[in-house]
C-alpha cells in the first residue's frame, strides 16, 4: 500500500530527472524502471521486461549462503558463462518487491555480479539471465534467515 504510493511518487520524480538526464550521459540510455521494482513474481517481472517464460538452467549460477545470520545483509551473486546474455537479475522471492538488482551486461565485463540484499524472511533467491534472443534462464537457491539473539 505504502509501497505502491511511494513508488508512484518516485516514477514522477524519475521522469522529471530524466528530462535533465543530459547532465548525466552515462544514465541517458537507462531510465529507471520503477514498474519493474513493483513486480511481485518472477513471471510478472520477466513479462514486463519483454522476456519469454523463464526456464531453469544449469548454465546460470546463483551464489549465496545456505543460512544468513542476519537478513539485513545477505551476500548473493548471479553469473553465467553463456554468450549473448544481455541482462542479469537478482530476485528474492518473498520480498515485497521481487527484483533487487538488474545489471546490464556489456562485452567489457564478466556476466558475474555480487552484491548484498535485505531479506525479510527465509526465501528462494534467483539469478535470472535475459538473453539476446529473448530466452530467459534462471537458477535458484534457498536461503534461510535466522532470528537474531537477545532483545534486538
Amino acid at each position, binding site marked *: 500500500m505504502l509501497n505502491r504510493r511511494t513508488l508512484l511518487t518516485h516514477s514522477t520524480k524519475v521522469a522529471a530527472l530524466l528530462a535533465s538526464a543530459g547532465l548525466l550521459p552515462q544514465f541517458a540510455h537507462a531510465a529507471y524502471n520503477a514498474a519493474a521494482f513493483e513486480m511481485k513474481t518472477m513471471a510478472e517481472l520477466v513479462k514486463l521486461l519483454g522476456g519469454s517464460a523463464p526456464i531453469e538452467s544449469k548454465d546460470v549460477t546463483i551464489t549465496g549462503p545456505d543460512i544468513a545470520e542476519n537478513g539485513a545483509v545477505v551476500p548473493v551473486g548471479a553469473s553465467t558463462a553463456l554468450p549473448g546474455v544481455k541482462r542479469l537479475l537478482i530476485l528474492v522471492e518473498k520480498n515485497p518487491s521481487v527484483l533487487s538488482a538488474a545489471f546490464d551486461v556489456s562485452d567489457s565485463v564478466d556476466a558475474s555480479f555480487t552484491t548484498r540484499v535485505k531479506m525479510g524472511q527465509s526465501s528462494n533467491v534467483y539469478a535470472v539471465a535475459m538473453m539476446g534472443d529473448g530466452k530467459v534462464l534462471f537458477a535458484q537457491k534457498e536461503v534461510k534467515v*535466522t*532470528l537474531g*539473539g*537477545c*532483545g*534486538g
Partner: protein
Amino acid sequence: MQNKTLFLTSAAAVAAATLLVGCATTPPGPTAAELDAQAMAMMKASFREQGIAKLDRIQQDLGQSACSSDKPPTEAVAKQVEAEALASIKWPTGGQYIGDWRAGERLAQDGRGMAWNNPSTDPKNNGGQCYNCHAIDKKEISFGTIGPSLWNYGKLRGVKDVTDPVSAPIVQYTWGKLWNSKAYAACSNMPRMGHMKLLDEQQIRDLMALLLDPKSPVNQ
C-alpha cells in the same frame, strides 16, 4: 561528577598507600576490601537512569551480591538465598499450572522486554527469551547453549498426563524454577521470571505447557 569520584577514590588510594608505606618494602595497592568499596562507588557513579531502567537496578539484593564474584558464595549464604527464594514462590491460582503451548512457544521465541528502550515494564510487553539460552523445539535451529536443552522436557521426565498426581513433583518443580530459579540454585544464570515480574501467571502457564504438555511439539 565522574571526575570528582575518580579524584576522591584515587586520593583515598594514595592516602592508604602513604599510611602503609612505613611498614612495607613495595608500596602496596588498595586491599581487596577497599577495591570492593571502590567498585561499588564506581558502579553508582557510572550509570544514569534511562527510560524504564532506573538506578535501583544496580542496588543488589542478597542473591545478586552473593553471586557477584568469580568465587561461589559460602554454603551457608547459598542455602539462605535458596530458602528465601523458595519461600517467595507464588503457586498458581486455583492450582492451574498448564496453559497453551502455542502461546508458550511465542513467548519462548520473544527476547524483548525490560531494556531501557522498551516502553514499559508491564509483563505483557515481555518475552520469555527462552531460546536465547535453551534448545526447546527441535525445529528452531537458532537456540542458545547457556542453559540445558529442554527438548522432550516432559517426555524424558515421564509426564504422560499433567494432571496425574504422579506428575505433580515435576510440574511443581518446573513452576518453581520458572517463578524463581534461585530456589534450586543460588547463583543460577536464569532470570526469576515470576518473582521479578518479568512474566505474569498466565504467561508462565503457557511456558509450562510448552515444556510439559504431551501435545506440545517439545514432547514429540
